[in-house]
């Protein structure tokens, strides 16, 4: 009887330990160390089952009988795991044996869950890397300028590339030197030109600290399409920038910046639309 009691205590202790282990395993996400431990347990478990299976098969171990009345979905492998983990002499008690079967199944399911979640994470990461790489390759045109050419005015030159000249920003800066830094400048261009705003903004950027307003001309003889950043028309304008517009008589004393732009000094206040052709 004393032996039976000790065996029963031992079994209860093992059950409690297993339950604690399961609880820890199910909470693996809550801390890094338990997660790692769980992963190690999962790896060890697979090895253990395989080893137990092999031993059972090769030696025909008589101490590990495979019962006919097992749970229908419990494989021989799991049965050996069940026996090796606690009852070396085979199940003495049917209830205990069934309980152990359930415990092993639960443990396997938890391990499967871990592998499935790990697989999902890996699938997501792989998907992200593939999509990201595809977009990167698509976006980065490898036929572009070389890294060796770290142009100081790369963006400005790009925005002024419509002027069809080399280093347009540098040439524009040079042309603006004939106009004082505190003077006002008027940008004149065709209203229907799609690059009007882009070129006007870039010219304003290059011309800083000179203040630049703009008049977008309509068709010949018609009213301007729009006027941007209007200062008083009585303001004294000291410089004129003509973009894709014939400067006519205002070209005198000015500088041509490529085939599409002309910068000329000016002095006086006139109605802005008078600068349109």
């Amino acid at each position, binding site marked *: 009887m004393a032996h039976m009691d000790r065996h029963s205590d031992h079994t209860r202790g093992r059950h409690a330990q297993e339950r604690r282990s399961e609880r820890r395993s199910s909470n693996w*996400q809550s801390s890094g160390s338990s997660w790692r431990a769980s992963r190690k347990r999962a790896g060890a478990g697979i090895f253990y089952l395989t080893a137990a299976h092999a031993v059972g098969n090769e030696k025909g171990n008589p101490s590990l009988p495979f019962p006919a009345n097992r749970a229908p979905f419990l494989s021989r492998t799991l049965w050996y795991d069940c026996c090796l983990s606690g009852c070396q002499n085979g199940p003495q008690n049917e209830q205990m044996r069934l309980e152990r079967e359930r415990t092993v199944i639960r443990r396997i399911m938890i391990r499967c869950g871990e592998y499935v979640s790990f697989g999902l994470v890996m699938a997501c990461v792989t998907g992200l890397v593939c999509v990201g790489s595809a977009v990167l390759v698509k976006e980065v045109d490898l036929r572009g300028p070389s890294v060796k050419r770290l142009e*100081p005015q790369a963006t400005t030159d790009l925005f002024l590339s419509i002027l069809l000249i080399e280093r347009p920003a540098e040439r524009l800066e040079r042309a603006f030197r004939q106009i004082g830094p505190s003077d006002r400048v008027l940008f004149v261009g065709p209203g229907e030109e799609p690059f009007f705003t882009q070129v006007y903004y870039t010219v304003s950027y290059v011309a800083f600290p000179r203040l630049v307003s703009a008049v977008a001309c309509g068709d010949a003889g018609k009213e301007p399409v729009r006027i941007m950043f209007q200062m008083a028309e009585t303001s004294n304008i000291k410089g004129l920038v003509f973009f894709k517009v014939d400067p006519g008589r205002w070209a005198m004393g000015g500088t041509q910046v490529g085939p599409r732009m002309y910068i000329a000094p000016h002095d006086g206040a006139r109605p802005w639309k008078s600068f349109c052709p």
Partner: protein
Amino acid sequence: MEVFLSLAALFFTFLAGFGVVLLLTQGDSRFSMAEIAGSAIVLGTGIVSLLLFLLGLILHDPALRWSVALICLAIAVVGWMRNRKVLAPSGQKLRSNGSQLVLIAVVLVQIAVISWVSLYLTHLGWDGLFNWESKARFVFLNRGSIPLHLYSRDFDFGHVRYPLLLPLTEAWIYSWLGQMNQSLIKLVGPYLYLGAMLLLVGGTTALFGGGWRRLIPVVFVGSVPTFVVGEGSATSGYADFPLAVVYLSASVHCVRYWQTRTAGSLRLLGATTVLLAWTKSEGIVLLCCIGAALLPLALWERKLSPIIGGVLPGVAMVVGWRVFLRVAHAPLTDEFTPVTWKVFVANSHRATEILNLTIRELGDWSRWSLLWPVVLMGFIYLAVRLRGIAWYPWTTLILGPVVMYPSVFFFSGWDPVRSHVFVYRPGPP
């Protein structure tokens, strides 16, 4: 030589941030090297830009440059002397293992790719040039200080009301170069990307433990196209990515504060929220999200310290910047109407259109890849696994901007609102 000088300029920003982080984390040794370095990168850019702005009112280059450099050095030395223990309290922090080496390799490869793409795609983009770099140019031409007549002389192009963290960081590089170089200032993007990586690694380690899982966020962020290429990415000249990094830093410190309740986390959070509104006007929205994440703590513990320490510095920056704009007579813009209940009700008919546009944006896989489905899975994971209300700060900090950003368009001054949305979102309407 030019690249070296640009990196020297960025190194001084790092020194300033490093010193400040050491000073703010005094008495708290729970921070990892990655967290300290990541926070130093973020805070450093803020400190240098604020110093340039304030000292620029009285000094000009080269005195301004050397004064700021000396202050950066002094902050680093004082921080080191006061709190050097935080760097190596035990050999544990310096011990390396397989996962750490792989992590370092992955981060280095990503930084190399981002730097290469930044320098290869040399153009800054529309906003990068006109809204941000243009101010750096004006500052450089004004010998290092912000020209106040920029705000009062009808210089309406370039959104003069925008804050100055990015332009002044770029101007700091120009100051060291002695010339303007639109290509080299793109190194700011990879530099902040490094900060983001370090914060992700440090934050993940602190919150979920070490091991291989630290790789997941690092690979994850590097694989989302909108973070790497295109308008607003780390390789563009836009302020969107710097704002995202500042928000990431604030989020990491906010969640850390939720977890540890340490004064060091709260001080770092407060210092970071200052930079939200200093980086971009939209930072106010993100500041509200940080406030919403901290509010339950303040209510639960019945004390105001989380709000005072974590949010109030950011609010002070918002107020300070607005006062400056008013004093400088900066012109008002009509992009947004005042945020009132009456306006919200009047524009409530926009809800369907805003919702549709938001869903369309979030579902654009060519920009966001699998980010949002994975975030959704992450929420399910958090809801199942985290106990109590530990899920709350995460949910607020991630979902808050997703909800609040589109809601801003209820107060848009544009009609139809669709055209305003597409100014913010690149692509065909």
